[in-house]
């Protein structure tokens, strides 16, 4: 009998090897902990008996050494059992930690920030105007986060398409901030002409950074059939710029054919590992993503930039 067989045969006892020494839901938890404690107690009593129950420094050290030996045997066995346990393809463990954790964290931070601003106002650190402005901003974002959490909590975790859409929306909002009001323009011109020039580049980097994990996630999780077009969110109001969307995908020819047939897509160019497409004003990038999915084209990466900007 080889070692693998031995570990597998002990599978009923090995549940704890995967979920911890004795997971709270393990029906054999008491027995396992009891066995561990018994082995320890028997060994310690024997050591003490052999030393006429004189507790000296060497005896204490031998007892500690014995504890280490028992822990070692236990963990070696758990290591072996874990190593030969089958990988469950549907095991939720392997999926990336979803957006929920991030959203919960963000919500917690925002709640604390609101409380902190209230506290600072009460302590006299913030003026009423400043605190109101801060709290307003925090509340608006917190409500957005709670809304998203509700959707995630309903089991309707954001699909990759929705995530892309969210990112595009966020990008447009950020881009809109780059067109400052008259007052802001004056501030910017006076104080940071140079800094302003780099804002767009940073925005793209930020967007790329946000997009990447979502797309990776899309690969991990089989996506249901795309929703009918009617269910898709309404397109963003027409913006005064065209986007260049670069897609890294597995079937370039099929993608070219697909995009060439669409009215809302401009010239399609082949780039290294994918295609580059010009998107007409108001086009919904998420719809393109859904179309690709529908056609069985697997997208591994998306980046969006303004026309005229360097990639």
């Amino acid at each position, binding site marked *: 009998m080889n070692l693998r067989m031995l570990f597998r045969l002990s599978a009923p006892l090995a549940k704890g*090897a995967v979920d911890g020494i004795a997971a709270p839901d393990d029906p054999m938890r008491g027995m396992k902990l009891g066995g561990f404690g018994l082995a320890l107690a028997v060994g310690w009593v024997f050591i003490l008996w052999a030393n006429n129950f004189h507790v000296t420094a060497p005896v204490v050290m031998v007892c500690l050494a014995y504890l280490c030996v028992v*822990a070692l045997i236990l963990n070696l066995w758990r290591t072996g059992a874990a190593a030969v346990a089958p990988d469950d393809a549907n095991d939720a463990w392997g999926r*990336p930690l979803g957006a929920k954790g991030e959203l919960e964290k963000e919500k917690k931070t925002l709640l604390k920030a609101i409380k902190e601003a209230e506290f600072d106002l009460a302590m006299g*650190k913030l003026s009423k105007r400043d605190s109101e402005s801060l709290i307003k901003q925090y509340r*608006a974002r917190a409500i957005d986060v709670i809304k998203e959490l509700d959707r995630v909590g309903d089991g309707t975790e954001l699909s990759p398409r929705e995530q892309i859409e969210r990112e595009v929306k966020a990008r447009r909002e950020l881009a809109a901030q780059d067109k400052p009001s008259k007052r802001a323009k004056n501030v910017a011109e006076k104080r940071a002409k140079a800094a302003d020039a780099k804002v767009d580049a940073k925005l793209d980097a*930020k967007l790329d950074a946000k997009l990447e994990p979502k797309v990776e996630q899309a690969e991990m999780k089989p996506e249901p059939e795309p929703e009918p077009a009617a269910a898709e969110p309404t397109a963003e109001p027409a913006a005064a710029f065209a986007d260049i969307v670069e897609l890294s995908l597995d079937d370039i020819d099929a993608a070219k054919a697909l995009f060439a047939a669409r009215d809302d897509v401009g010239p399609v160019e082949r780039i290294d590992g994918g295609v580059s497409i010009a998107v007409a004003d108001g086009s919904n990038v998420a719809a393109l993503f859904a179309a690709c999915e529908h056609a069985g084209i697997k997208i591994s990466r998306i980046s969006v930039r303004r026309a005229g900007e360097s990639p």
Partner: protein
Amino acid sequence: MTDSTVPFSPIALVGTIAILGAYLAAAWAFASGIAGNARKSRRLVNASVYGMYGFSALVGLASALMIYAFVSHDFSIKYVAATSDTTMSTAYKVTAFWGGLDGSLLFWVLVLAMFSTVAIAVNHRKHRDMIGYVVATIMVVQIFFLSLLIFTKNPFNTYLTTPPIDGQGLNPILQNYWMVIHPPSLYTGFVAATIPFAFGIGALASGRLDDLWLGSVRVWMLICFGFLSLGLILGGRWAYEELGWGGYWAWDPVENAGLIPWFTATAFLHSAIIQEQRGTMKTWNLALVVMTFFFTVFGTFMTRSGIVQSIHAFGEDNVLALQFVVFLSVILIVSIGLIVYRSNKLATRTEFDSFYSREFAFLLNNWILLACAFFVLFATMFPTISEAVNGSRVSVGIPFFNKWMTPFGLVLLFLAGASPLLAWRKTTRERLKSQFAFPFAAMAVTIVVLLVAFPQTKHLSSLFLDQLKLPVSLLNFGLIAFVVASIGQEFWRGTAVRVRQTGGDAVSSLLGLVLAKRRKYGGYIVHLGIAVIFFGIAGKAYEQRTDRTIEKPAQVTKDTTGGAGDPSGASTWQFGGYTFTYEAIGHTSDDHKDAVTAQVGIYDHGDRIATVYPAKWDYHKGEGQMTTEVAIRVRPTEDIYVVLTGFDLDSGQANFTAFINPLILWVWVGFMILGFGTLVCLIPQRVVDKMQWKPTTRLGRAADVGSIGVIVLAVSLAISSQARADAPAQSNVPVEHVPAGMGMGNSGVGYAVKNRPANDTEARAMKEILCPCGCARQSILDCECGTAADLRAQVQALMAGADLSTASSRDRVYDAVLARFKTDYGLSILSTPPSNVPWLLPVLAAIGGLGLLLVVGRRFVTRGAIAVAAAPKPDGEDERYADKLDDELADTD
């Protein structure tokens, strides 16, 4: 069958097997961890985690066997024979485990194994998408240290020939109770930095760079900070009691090795808050995590490779140095590579709304802390660098460090008080006035009172350069008042707000406030501790010292502790407002040492306030290295510190050095406050949730507060109870005959008092010249050895007859004396580098850093202004969600 002449130790055999097994377990955990996360395989990641637990069990086994070998006197093991003997107490035998290089490396591995087991067990599920990488990173560090153990420094190596009957004993200066806990705490601080580093690398490798990992990292960095602080302060306490030079910090390279990561860890603890609050500075925080870990390994490298000269270092070892250099390079390459690889995910848009914001104060604090870290690193390594560049080793002494670190310290002290007063994002002009009025008033009042009541505080000290002089002491006291007032105001106003919000009483509101906002108010307590430590440090400027040779002890026939002694006659001397009487000297002996103990009575205005017993101990296995057992009488305002620096038992002649160390008690008290603040920060939420501390009556609340106060006071008193040499077994010790100079080493009669400076110029020159006897880099003014006495004589001879009437002539003579010493003994004899380079580089770095900070700060603030101006006004709130938010806010404290 084993040959009877060849030693065989089953402990050594099993211990070595355990280390080898641990090596295999570490390799397995490393490989399966990386493969597990890369392939998203639960079984492999679990196998990696359990492999790591198995590794920890093996290391625990090896360590238990090592200690067993010590306590059972298995001298067939070389390391045991080299660092222990049969006469040592059990506590010191356990201490001997980390008393030498080989054992200290195993101890390092053990502490890291324990920490990583706890860290992984706690975070196993929360960070499952990176835990394999975290385990792998920890295992790489463990594999490195295990490699050192297995290939070069195996503590289980045995003698090939007949082992000695008894061991050589532990280094006498390590046989001090502070040494039992100082190294473990410092090691623990060093080791704790590995956990944040591993999580940082795990986050980079997995690409999961949101704020989740930061929470886990922050706790471990706080633990690292706490233990480093503990290790540093205990090291200072040990030096204060054991080295007998009246001080506690000498900018020794090994002390600095612990201080450098302390600076970067502190910087991280502040900048991590910016990331949590504003979601920015991700790359910076990762860089600080990497730097902290790098500096802990670098510190270990400095201590163990012998590249720096220190009384704490383990000696030169080029092979070990090379191995450390390779490992340090790997750390840098991998860390920087991963940060660059993930730079797109780390890119954040840092915006500050105003310079008058807490985030900008934190940025400034980061710059100062980083400047401190790099300055200390530069100055510590400068002797080694200079030796490598031009072949001559240049010394960098205490004055050099003090001139640079003092201004940095003052700025940090100011920030410790100013940051809590600032709001996040922006503090308006009116709010600034309201917030800073009281602390500035407290500062101004303190300065005025000190100027009137203690004019000596006007004393000018050099900062950066000799020419730039400021009343540092006065500024320091003023800033301490500023910080205390600022923190006090925060607690006062916070409690008042809490009282209004909850309707409770002041005491429960204060406790509720601290528990609800543990990080914030725990941090304030830490700031308060820092201010109190600065208060203690400020006293150092007013230290007084005297050296006396007393021919004979007074004939003490009465009770020596009850105040009936005779504070007059030839055996007495006056110093610092006290009268000291040398009353007796005696020799005692036990299994492992000879002790010569003097008895000195101390009188304050005729009242006997203490009997102290300064002593010299000569360990039989100490190869003539005597230890100084200092006698300290602690008072809140000052320590009276008496050292027996020489004696002749035949004639009864004895030499004493006495110090009056003002305010030094507050250094230790300040640390206790700092430690308490750190613990407050570390209280987990679930502990707070379980606290049902709601006494119903006023009496009950008062009793609770009183109990807490008594506990804190008792712990404080217990910890701060000062050590002194043990009193002799009998009050009137019969004087046994011990040959003159017995075990005197360099502490012969009268050396410390010989050739004392006759004027300020002599004292200045003597302070600048380092004693080459191998002491703790003391100047010849302070060192008690014969070499220092001879060099002082040389200084006096060189200055004899010189014109010292004008400042310029004094400077000329001073320069001439130093030049002569430089010629005769080389550059390393001087405590301040004569070259311009070490002065120039920090100046350029500091100015450059400040300029960069202002440029970066301005840019952040500009961005913030644009964002605020252009931000769309929030729409009206969805009522359903607004209600939900309000509900959640009601549950948030």
